[in-house]
């Protein structure tokens, strides 16, 4: 199966293929199977990994045609964090076992990174994985895991050697979730919603063959997985909640709310509203600049700034929304949509200012990686993990 190396020819080919094979009422699994077989699922990947070995600019043509046809399944080489991590660090055996099912979406997956004792300091994970025969026994607790109850496997970061510095004693596994040693407990957020879980690992077993990378190489594997996740989050809608899509989506909301409450002639509120609208607009422009700069192949500081701006924007929106709602902001529930929205916005903003690296951690990253400011001295550099002070 040869593929044209001319964009126009490629475009014609993909378009033709889509016209011939795609239809909206196809069975999803059957369709994905055809996409994977044709190489369009992961066009950048090599032929022995379901791909076509295309350079980025040609692969984007494939993705564009899929988008145009509203056909799912392409671009997984950029967006499928599970398969991407397996490709990057999995053994031949793991690739054989996992790649195709992951590309077909046949496996439900979850992330087992964060721990109650290791939030911002992800390298501080305490969950232990101890060698036991042809596998490892895992003990510890993970938190903020989405879809844990449905997951077949969890990508697990665990400590296999506490006697070396913290980044060096971590390993990375595909942990089977359906076993007695894995207990999932839903975690209730302060908004009242339940989108995450705690996962208790008690003598959970993972085959040694399910390790990605070498023992002690888990931190590097994790960086690859996190990079995939950032790209994915950039393109899909993120949030602690199905409701969060409402926020920051358009300018009309605050203005309409103020109008409907007869407060749009309040000069103080008008200033607040204008600030929020402007910040949204500027953030959209920053996003466009980031896109252009990334497309032009240069690294963009703007990518690092987005989350921080979004955090400020969401907190500000919650604040202004509450001011407009007035006493109604004392209420919640379906019967009180204005108060409910304002309170939800104000609370859910913390999801962005805390989750995936707090605002404080983001500022460190921007200061150090973008502005080149020096790191803080780390008195435990080179110290074995077990000798580093910890909570409690």
């Amino acid at each position, binding site marked *: 199966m040869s593929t044209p190396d001319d964009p126009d020819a490629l475009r014609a080919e993909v378009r033709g293929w889509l016209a011939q094979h795609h239809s909206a009422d196809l069975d999803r699994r059957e369709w994905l199977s055809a996409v994977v077989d044709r190489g369009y699922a992961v066009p950048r990947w090599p032929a022995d990994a379901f791909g076509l070995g295309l350079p980025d600019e040609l692969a984007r043509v494939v993705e564009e045609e899929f988008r145009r046809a509203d056909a799912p399944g392409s671009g997984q080489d950029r967006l499928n964090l599970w398969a991407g991590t397996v490709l990057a660090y999995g053994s031949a055996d793991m690739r054989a076992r996992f790649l195709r099912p992951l590309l077909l979406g046949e496996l439900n997956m979850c992330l087992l990174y*964060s721990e*109650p004792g*290791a*939030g*911002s*300091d992800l390298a*501080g994970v305490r969950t232990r994985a101890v060698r036991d025969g042809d596998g490892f026994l895992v003990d510890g607790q993970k*938190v*903020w895991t989405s879809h844990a109850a449905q997951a077949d496997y969890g990508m697990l970061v665990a400590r296999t050697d506490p006697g070396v510095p913290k980044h060096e004693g971590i390993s990375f596994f595909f942990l089977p979730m359906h076993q007695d040693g894995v207990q999932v407990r839903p*975690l*209730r*957020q*302060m908004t*009242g919603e339940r989108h995450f879980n705690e996962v208790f690992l008690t003598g959970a077993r993972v085959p040694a063959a399910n390790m990605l990378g070498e023992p002690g190489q888990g931190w590097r594997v994790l960086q690859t997985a996190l990079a995939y996740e950032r790209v994915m989050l950039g393109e899909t809608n993120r949030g602690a909640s199905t409701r969060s899509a409402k926020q920051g989506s358009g300018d009309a909301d605050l203005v309409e709310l103020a109008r409907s409450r007869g407060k749009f002639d309040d000069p*103080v509120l008008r200033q607040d509203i204008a600030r929020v609208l402007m910040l949204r607009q500027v953030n959209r422009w920053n996003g466009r600049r980031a896109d252009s700069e990334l497309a032009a192949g240069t690294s963009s500081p703007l990518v690092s700034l987005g989350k921080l701006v979004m955090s400020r924007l969401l*907190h500000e929106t919650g604040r202004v929304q*509450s*001011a407009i709602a*007035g*006493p109604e*902001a*004392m*209420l*919640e*529930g379906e*019967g*009180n949509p204005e*108060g409910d929205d304002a*309170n939800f916005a*104000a*609370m859910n903003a*913390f*999801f962005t*200012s*805390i*989750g995936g690296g*707090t*605002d*404080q951690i983001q*500022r460190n990253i921007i200061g150090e990686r973008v502005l080149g400011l020096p790191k803080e001295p*780390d*008195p*435990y550099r080179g*110290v074995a993990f077990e000798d*580093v*002070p*910890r*909570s*409690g």
Partner: protein
Amino acid sequence: MLFEFTEEQRALRSAVRELLADHADEQRVRSTAAGELGHDPQLWKLLAEQLGVTGLAVPERSGGAGAGPVELAVVQEEFGRALFCGPYLGSSVLAATLLDALGDETGHLTEIAAGHRIAAVALAEDTAGWDVPRLGATATEDGGTWRVSGAKRFVLDAACADVLLVVTRGPRVFAVDPADRGVTVQPLQVFDPTRRQADVRFDRATAQPVGDPDRSAAALDRALRTAEVMLAAEQAGGARAALDMAVDYARTRFQFGRAIGSFQAVKHLCADLLVEVESAHSAAFAAAWALAEDAPQIDEHTALAQAFCSEAFEKAAADNIQIHGGIGFTWEHPAHLYLRRARTGTRLFGSPDQHRERYLAATGC
């Protein structure tokens, strides 16, 4: 003297704090807040009988302890720390102050002071808010019987009240039996379940006039100003509790091999919060002393206290969550309970913006 507490005031603070520690820990607050009543009658009884605080500021001739606004504020500050859940602000502060200021002779005040009766003041309306001169509820006399009509909103503690004090245009104050057929009490789904509110509709409900009509405006002013200051004291206490929680966590939670409180990002948030917390205490108690001394700056100081303490508490409650990180975002952690209390207080009795305008007017600006 301003900001110097007497031995009695200190003892009162300790007594309230101990009682709450013994009978209203977080677990109890959560279960009370989750209950239908939103109020713990056992605890109320202890507060009334053991400490006598249900009638703290009620004159002795009406069966109260005859203490003043400073003592009330001490209690409220402790209540704020512990997220006390019950009809204190609505009944023992707002209603009791109103009845006392009206020179009430109906006996309600004595019963409230004893903790046997709970009163709710139905004042706010949709367009008027808490602005008395703009109220629209009406009272009419018909063959010697008074009847009141109107839609009241955000009535504190109405659902557990034994008597409703309705404020009508004029203003005038009437007592209405919540069981009257002309009364509909609709509990609200509140964001802060530790402070219950209801909408109350009056449709020609039978009403007893309360107090001298000529004193109603002044009495309402005194009652509202007092309630604002006591809310401010509660907020000062809540802000301090949020800061204490943040500092405790920052001292004991390790990341990167260090207590997170050793990082300037966290340390400086806490330092700035201490400024807010201490200033909120100053603002609330300066206003309480002004009330106690009937100082000419009552209006100015109460407006300041409400605006300042509302915002200080909101900031403390929010930063506490941020400092806690993920755990602070969970339902199980108490941080959000303080956020709920803080956000609600900011909207009760008017917004900080409105209080600032009132402050300028009061200072003659």
